[in-house]
């Protein structure tokens, strides 16, 4: 751990606000105020070259918005995102954008929606190569596409087919081949296996790991499935209602979660090992993001909430075991230390 690789991506106090107000006339007639949705609020983290940061949270916590901010699909409303020292928001438009797009690619959740149904696979995969002029000449492009397809476990002959001729897992392989076509260093993966069956998910996760080893890729891996994140990530960030509540290395986060929300999430995962662990019943639901509670947004569901939690927004602070945690109760050591959940000996 002494000489850690350079920081490739830095997200600093990034925020994204969406205006979800009614149209002007309806708003005026109904005397409604403007409504702003803080999808992402003051989120900061770094990703170093070659590592995988997992991002978990329930629907609506802002994890996909973070992905879109990073690849420049949305400009941030506040804060900054820098990739290898350059600002993504300014890069996202104009000439310099090509350079960024080549180095940073995204894989989406739904392989049925993210591939053009009217294009042959060979053209889908060749598009980034042509756009970035990485290889010239039909022959050479074709050879490169064939190599990419075999790299992700498809046959060169599959290039002549259309997306509908493939199963979900194979389509996700096509998406990966297309993302790899521009020889990127960094892949933003937004729920890449959520639409797949478990056995197919295992194939895709294994493939992604092999590619990372071989090509030295860096991943931001977003998923609502904690077990999947546990399998792929080196570090894990937990989001709740647009904020990062805890970020830590994988092992301490799963063995010794600090934030009450992280504890609750881990406790809620159905247990395949059936160790008969006693569950703390999870109370309540995620509040409406349009009217988030004041102070710590988790306080209405938190067993450790007090007056400070109800009024002051907690900031990420270093806590035990190198984790960064945004929680007053953790900071004030108000939460009784629980024994780490029984961890099976690693295989």
């Amino acid at each position, binding site marked *: 751990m002494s000489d850690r690789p350079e920081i490739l991506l830095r997200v600093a106090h990034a925020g994204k606000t969406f205006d979800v107000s009614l149209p002007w006339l309806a708003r005026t007639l109904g005397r409604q105020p403007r409504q702003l949705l803080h999808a992402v609020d003051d989120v900061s983290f770094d990703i170093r070259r070659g590592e995988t940061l997992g991002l978990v949270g329930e629907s609506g916590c802002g994890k996909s918005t973070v992905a879109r901010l990073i690849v420049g699909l949305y400009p941030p409303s506040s804060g900054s995102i820098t990739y290898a020292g350059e600002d993504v928001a300014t890069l996202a438009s104009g000439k310099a954008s090509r350079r960024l797009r080549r180095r940073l690619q995204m894989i989406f959740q739904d392989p049925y929606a993210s591939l053009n149904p009217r294009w042959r696979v060979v053209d889908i995969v060749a598009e980034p190569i042509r756009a970035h002029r990485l290889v010239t000449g039909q022959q050479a492009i074709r050879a490169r596409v064939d190599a990419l397809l075999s790299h992700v476990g498809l046959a060169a002959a599959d290039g002549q087919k259309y997306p509908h001729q493939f199963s*979900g897992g194979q389509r996700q392989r096509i998406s990966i081949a297309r993302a790899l076509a521009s020889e990127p260093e960094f892949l933003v993966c937004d729920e890449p296996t959520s639409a797949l069956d*478990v056995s*197919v998910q295992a194939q895709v996760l294994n493939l992604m*790991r092999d590619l990372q080893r071989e090509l030295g890729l860096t991943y931001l891996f977003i998923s609502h499935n904690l*077990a999947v994140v546990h399998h792929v990530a080196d570090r894990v960030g937990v989001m709740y209602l647009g904020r990062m509540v805890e970020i830590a290395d994988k092992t301490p986060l799963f063995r010794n979660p600090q934030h009450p929300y992280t504890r609750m999430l881990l406790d809620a995962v159905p247990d395949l090992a*059936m160790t008969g662990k006693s569950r703390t019943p999870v109370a309540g639901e995620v509040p409406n993001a349009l009217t988030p509670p004041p102070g710590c947004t988790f306080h209405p569901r938190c067993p450790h909430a007090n007056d400070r939690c109800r009024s002051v927004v907690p900031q990420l602070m270093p806590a035990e075991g190198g984790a960064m945690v945004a929680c007053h109760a953790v900071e004030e050591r108000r939460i009784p230390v629980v024994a780490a959940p029984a961890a099976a000996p690693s*295989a």
Partner: protein
Amino acid sequence: MTRPLLEVRDLRVEFPTRRGTLVAVEGVSFEIAPGEVLGVVGESGAGKSLTGAAIIGLLEPPGRISAGEIRLDGMRIDNLSQDAMRRIRGRRIGAIFQDPLTSLNPLYSIGRQLVETIRTHLDLGEAAARQRAIDLLREVGIPAAERRIDHYPHQFSGGMRQRVVIALAICAQPQLIIADEPTTALDVSIQAQIIALLKRLGRDHGTAVMLVTHDMGVIAETADRVAVMYAGRVAEIGPVAEVIRAPKHPYTVGLMGSIPSLVGDRERLVQIDGTMPRLNAIPPGCAFHPRCDRVFARCRRERPELLDVGATRAACWLHAPDAGRAGT
């Protein structure tokens, strides 16, 4: 053992198409005892939802049951008329589907939907039915039930809507509930609440539950026994602890190994290469043989039936008494 509440024998579901008949479910047999939760797992297209739909008489035409029989409490229900089936559905068999929003009518308050269902099946007056609806909402954990009863589905969150759907399913105290992916559309923390609720209902009312899901974790938490389906057939069926800890069918072994875990550290997940065959291209012999790493000659020729292996039953020639000598 008490008499099973639901008996399914050699069920076959097929879809006639212009290019021939597709067999989606074949030779499926299992039973569920009163108060028991049977989990049915499998990947998309394995036939698990169709099996549920066949039991409840909601197969979409042209799909039809072409062989086998289904008995509820000893009475055959697979050959009933639409009308007779409608009286059983809701009254004796309740249903919970994946998406709570499509299971509820957006134009009626949930109270009206509950009262309508209760009065269809039970001989109750308007006021008594409304009181029962409030009690049911309370039972499934909806706070301020007497106020919430007049709200419309869009005023509830996903988890609360699924609770309303469960209240609808249990309102006539059915003997059996078919729950098809009841937690799949929900976030993990809500999913845990719904699982706990389903378990409690089974315990308190002696309701049998057929829980169809692709999530082995949900099965592990909820079910007493589990049936693993592959390509329209039951590959393995047995007590849930047995199937999860010591799976007997190579498909179940691969399936269990492919699930990422929250504990331990594995470099790679177990990978079953290939995909489940399409309905029009089911291989001869054992449908799993092209993907199986323990395949031998007999697997390619003969289709295995369920064989007893300890407390479980597995459809795999490895467990045939004379399997030892078989070569490739």
